[in-house]
């Protein structure tokens, strides 16, 4: 197949989904792989791997430059991904999609363009206590540069956002609300639609961090009402170093460019540069060509899934995993909000998360252990780290069962 060809629609069939992922057939430490770390980065289906190999094997050259055959082929395949992202998140126009290296890059772009150009001393940026460091640090850097205020909306002990506190902290000083769609450490799904409505009523813009949301939730940026939406390709079954920022066209038009260089200009003299129109204004230099094409293949693959079937599968698996983990003596779930998805963070009374991680690993179970780049969340619960099994489209009951058996071995050693 070529990267640009759409795939046939498939119904949700877990065995068939798993067969698309070569790595799931690998043995690790001599054991069946139970890969429960998709929230950190998803595995890649063969369609993505083949799209990248196809690009470098048959269609690779720099884009937007040459008039020769390979440059034209690469440019067509690369440009086609913008429409795929547009479809994925239901953006109004494909020119509202800026390719970035990932969510972190997308948020920094907003901070360094929209933020630097429009925020001034005394303005407030409202974030939540459950943000990933990538949605905290760029605003702190801006705070220290511009004298803006960074205000934090707390979450409740179950991990749900305290919407009363959100309403109370929202004020005429609030210029931007930066909130995650889904917490990477807790799995909490935030009511981003309500947040956008309330923020807009207060005159604030909203940036939604979709890194954890996009692989699990039906995302429609127009229905959501956001102003900026950021996500990473690698959590959506695509390659690392890819991602996108969506922003309303009028915002992108008004935002100054950030990085200067080739491909983001209309004309350059030593006296003056005319910048290209968005999104190209924000895409300086040779882009991650094969990566973006791979991200497009990942989106194609994801959109080829039976989404209702996937939703049901993931919800059932989260319920099953939560129930099985509750059977483990001494285990405490961290994050029990009514609205959550794909993440089952926990601590165990007898062992430190890193020791648990090593023992699970010896049993073929891959989980993230640590603070998940969300240290304020850890601080809320007065812990240094959690064990975080997380789900992807290919996760299955057998993975959960293998996890629970392996936790029994942890208790044997440390209990």
């Amino acid at each position: 197949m070529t990267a640009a060809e759409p795939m046939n629609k498939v119904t949700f069939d877990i065995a068939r989904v798993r067969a698309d992922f070569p790595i799931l057939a690998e043995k690790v430490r001599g054991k069946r792989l139970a890969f429960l770390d998709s929230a950190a980065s998803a595995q890649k289906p063969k369609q993505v791997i083949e799209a990248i190999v196809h690009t470098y094997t048959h269609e690779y050259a720099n884009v937007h430059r040459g008039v020769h055959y390979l440059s034209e082929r690469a440019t067509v395949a690369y440009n086609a991904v913008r429409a795929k992202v547009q479809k994925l998140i239901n953006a109004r126009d494909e020119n509202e999609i800026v390719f970035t290296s990932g969510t972190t890059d997308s948020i920094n772009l907003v901070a360094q363009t929209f933020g630097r150009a429009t925020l001034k001393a005394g303005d407030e940026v409202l974030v939540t206590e459950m943000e990933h460091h990538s949605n905290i640090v760029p605003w702190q850097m801006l705070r220290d540069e511009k004298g803006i205020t960074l205000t934090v909306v707390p979450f409740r002990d179950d991990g749900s956002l305290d919407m009363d506190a959100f309403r109370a902290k929202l004020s005429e000083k609030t210029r931007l609300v930066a909130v995650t769609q889904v917490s990477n450490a807790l799995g909490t799904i935030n009511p981003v639609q309500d947040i956008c409505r309330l923020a807009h009523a207060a005159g604030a813009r909203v940036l939604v961090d979709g890194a954890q949301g996009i692989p699990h939730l039906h995302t429609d940026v127009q229905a959501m009402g956001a102003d900026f939406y950021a996500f990473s390709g690698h959590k959506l079954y695509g390659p690392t170093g890819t991602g996108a920022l969506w922003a309303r066209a009028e915002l992108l038009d008004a935002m100054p460019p950030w990085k200067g260089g080739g491909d983001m200009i209309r004309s350059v003299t030593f006296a003056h540069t005319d910048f290209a129109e968005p999104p190209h204004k924000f895409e300086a230099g040779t882009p991650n060509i094969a990566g973006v094409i791979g991200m497009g293949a990942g989106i194609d693959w994801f959109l080829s899934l039976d989404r209702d079937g996937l939703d049901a599968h993931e919800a059932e698996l989260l319920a099953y995993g939560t129930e099985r983990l509750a059977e483990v003596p001494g285990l405490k779930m961290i994050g029990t909000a009514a609205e959550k998805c794909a993440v089952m963070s926990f601590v165990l009374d007898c062992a430190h998360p890193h020791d648990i991680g090593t023992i699970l690993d010896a049993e073929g179970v891959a989980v993230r252990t640590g603070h998940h780049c969300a240290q304020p969340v850890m601080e809320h619960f007065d812990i240094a780290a959690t064990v975080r099994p997380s789900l992807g489209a290919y996760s299955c009951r057998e993975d959960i069962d293998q996890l629970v058996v392996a936790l029994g071995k942890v208790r044997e050693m440390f209990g």
Partner: protein
Amino acid sequence: MSDLRDLYQEVILDHSKHPRNFGHREPTNRDAKGHNPLCGDQLRIFALVEDGRIKDITFEGRGCAISVASASMMTEMLKGRTEAEADEIFRRFHAVVTGEEEIGDDEAEQGEGGLDKLRVLAGVRDYPMRVKCATLAWHTLKSALDAKGAETVVTE
């Protein structure tokens, strides 16, 4: 991969559950904070150094079994040593847990004060992601000794 029991030997589990020299004990004239950004673990080392000799050494903080056991064993190993001896033991220990050097079977290693007591931590070499856990306390102590005052060290 080696057996998990090579990593989590009884001695290590014992030190992690019942760490020696745990808790700040005065007097001290050297201290440093250690931080492992990978897991968020933090510990603090306190030492009393007089005439170039480590008269006392204690630690506090929280961490995984490997880091707590390593800190505990380090305090036992280094109490009473000169700073120069501590430096050399740190160098040897680092080389052992990263698999660059072995602990010998000769009397100098096996005898009182020999490095053999730390052999149980050598299993960590098979787990590259965990080497930092084993060396955190040591890096922190080195920082405390080198800086001759308060310092924060972060494992790389």
